[in-house]
């Protein structure tokens, strides 16, 4: 705590209330956080660091200000540090991560892995009191030896050849190393379960948005989803609170993959893993598919996280059950079943 308190005491405090800097304010979670901070009187100022002006600013947000920052630039850490020191930022929320894989893997690596390094360098130079980073439970990896519920102490295995996952693993590990080296900064890494919802766009919304989906023949792992509103709420709780370390943010309940497909009314295409993998590799290489071949592993083995730490330390329990999350994603209310599934393909 010593570093953080000294650091912020030395800085000019023009505003009464907390000052938050958000990277990746253009994302769904970033935008939702800005809206919630706008309504919370404890927060005085919000700095939005992103490459383009976040759409949330157009909604008459008064507390927020946009600073064009490109995390992939080589000397951007110095600029961020100056900004953090000048504005007296006490909370940094690092959310500049991709929700779905891109074929521009080099750029994604620069943004996620190197971008995290830049943000952490800036935080080392101008230490905030609190640093919150957005991660994913996919970083644990889907492996046959996984227990049904992975706790935060489980190792991040990632995926042997997925840059999309491994960049997130490396960002997560960087944040943990930063936490060890800077005990004065409260570092929290929120590992979100796969997020579904009517507005958000992620790897999973794209995958399940298609009419048909592959099923690895003979395998049917349990899946876990988090509703986008639950995710936004958990992020706000994490920014408010003082919980540290990695924290799994998960939804309520699990469902087998084939049941998820049935509930969504998707056509399940059973195929052997090796054939599916070869096909997915070819389609990914030709940029026909937007989900990488490594995603198939998550349809083979279980990768479900345990949310008890979030319940204890953040007071977060998901409000949406997995079934409700799926119906909400489809645009169906429980009363009318999922009869308007077809409207999402109109």
């Amino acid at each position, binding site marked *: 705590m010593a570093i953080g308190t000294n650091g912020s005491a030395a800085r000019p405090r023009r505003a009464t209330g907390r000052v938050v800097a958000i990277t990746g304010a253009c994302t769904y979670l970033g935008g939702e956080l800005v809206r919630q901070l706008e309504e919370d009187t404890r927060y005085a100022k919000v700095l939005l660091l992103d490459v383009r002006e976040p*759409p949330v600013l*157009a*909604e*008459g947000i008064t507390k927020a200000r946009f600073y064009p920052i490109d995390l992939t630039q080589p000397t951007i850490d110095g600029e961020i540090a100056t900004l953090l020191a000048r504005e007296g930022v006490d909370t940094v929320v690092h959310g500049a991560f991709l929700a779905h894989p891109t074929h521009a893997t080099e750029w994604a690596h620069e943004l996620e892995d190197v971008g995290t390094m830049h943000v952490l360098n800036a935080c080392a130079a101008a230490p905030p009191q609190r640093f919150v980073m957005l991660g994913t439970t996919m970083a644990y990896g889907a492996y*046959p*030896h996984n*227990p*049904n*519920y992975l*706790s935060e102490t489980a190792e991040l295995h990632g995926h042997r050849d997925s840059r999309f996952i491994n960049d997130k693993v490396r960002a997560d590990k960087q944040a943990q190393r930063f936490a060890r080296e800077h005990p004065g900064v409260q570092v929290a890494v929120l590992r979100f379960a796969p997020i579904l919802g*009517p*507005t*958000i*766009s992620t790897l999973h*919304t*794209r995958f399940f*948005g298609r009419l048909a989906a592959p099923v690895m*023949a*003979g*395998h*049917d792992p*349990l899946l876990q989803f988090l509703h986008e509103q639950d995710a936004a709420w958990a992020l706000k709780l994490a920014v408010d609170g003082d919980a540290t370390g990695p924290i799994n943010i998960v939804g309520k*309940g*699990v*469902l*087998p993959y*084939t*049941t998820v*497909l*049935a*509930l969504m*009314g998707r056509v*399940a295409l059973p195929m052997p893993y090796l054939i599916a993998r070869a096909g997915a590799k070819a389609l990914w290489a030709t940029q026909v598919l937007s989900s990488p071949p490594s995603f198939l592993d998550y349809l083979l*083995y279980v990768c479900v996280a345990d949310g008890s730490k979030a319940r204890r330390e953040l007071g977060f329990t998901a409000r949406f059950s997995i*079934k409700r999350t799926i119906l909400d994603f*489809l*645009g*169906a*209310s429980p*009363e*009318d*079943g*999922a*009869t*308007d*599934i*077809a*409207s*999402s*393909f*109109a």
Partner: protein
Amino acid sequence: MPNDPTDPTDDLADDLADDLADDDDAADGWPSGAPDASAVADASWPDDDVFLGGEASLAPHASQDHYPSMLDDSTELGAEQREIERRLEGGRTPVYPLDARRPLPLEFVWKRWRTFAMRGRSDVVDDFGRDPIATARWEWVLDFLYSKWFRVEVTGLEHVPDEGRALLVANHAGSLPYDSAMVMHAVRRDHRARRDVRPLVEDAVFHLPWLGPLMNRIGGVRACPENAERLLANDELVAVFPEGVKGMSKLWRDRYRLQRFGRGGFIKLALRSRAPLIPVAVIGAEEALPLLGRITWFARNVGIPYVPVTPTFPWLGPAGLLPLPSKWRIAFGEPIDLAGEYGPDAAEDRLLVGRLAEQVRAQVQGMVDALRKS
């Protein structure tokens, strides 16, 4: 708020209240009946709007008189319009409640398809993936095997507690886990509290194609300390087969000779979670699938520890995996209360754990021998 001389929120609130008062359809938030076509036609919506077409129904407060300009960002409809644009930008088709829903010709097909796809499965499973509907669907198979095929005789069921956690420790045999299924079914069928047993299934079986997911749906759980601890913390009955794959792969000539009880993980589990151990002896599983030999040279490549050779498999193909109709006996022994004797710290004492595991193994072996002689 650039173009907004008056505060629109009051108007909208009043309007909403009016709508709720005189429109039943609005009671559940959104109109579900026939859309008010005249209101939409009179409004200033573009006709070619795909998502808010002619038959579209709108939010309940959006009545004709209060239609704001679409360019007016400060009102709720302006916000909705922007939201729709945001969704389109994100590559997602906008859906309820933002876009108005239109019945599509495919709707009927989708409804039937969903009902068809959901047959035999429940939309709620428990924490470890047991599906109540799937369990009920397979119940008759287990019951047939239990009462007609194996003609199981059970003794000592009164030792299984009516409530609270307990760890059933049983011997293991047969290339397929028919014994876990029978122990599970015995307690569910004949115990007075009809409790559910969660058998822990070793990886080699749990990840078998089709069979693994099926076992998971009807109650099996992958054997690992984290899962077992979580189950016991929920006060469930857990059945463990500490011999593991070594028990399953013992040959006919070694039948009913219990193998090493793993590394004593089940003892640590019982000590940590303060659960009583109930020794269980199963007779008949060895004869149901007598293992004459094991083929290992290509089994590793397909991810299983060995290919069993029995009198019927692989000669009869998959049908050879069906068990022979041997006579089964299952005996539940007196509970061993380790928690009364040792504290939770005893789980760290490796010598003690090893000794206790061997004691329990000897006890189960004694029960098996006594049951075979009787």
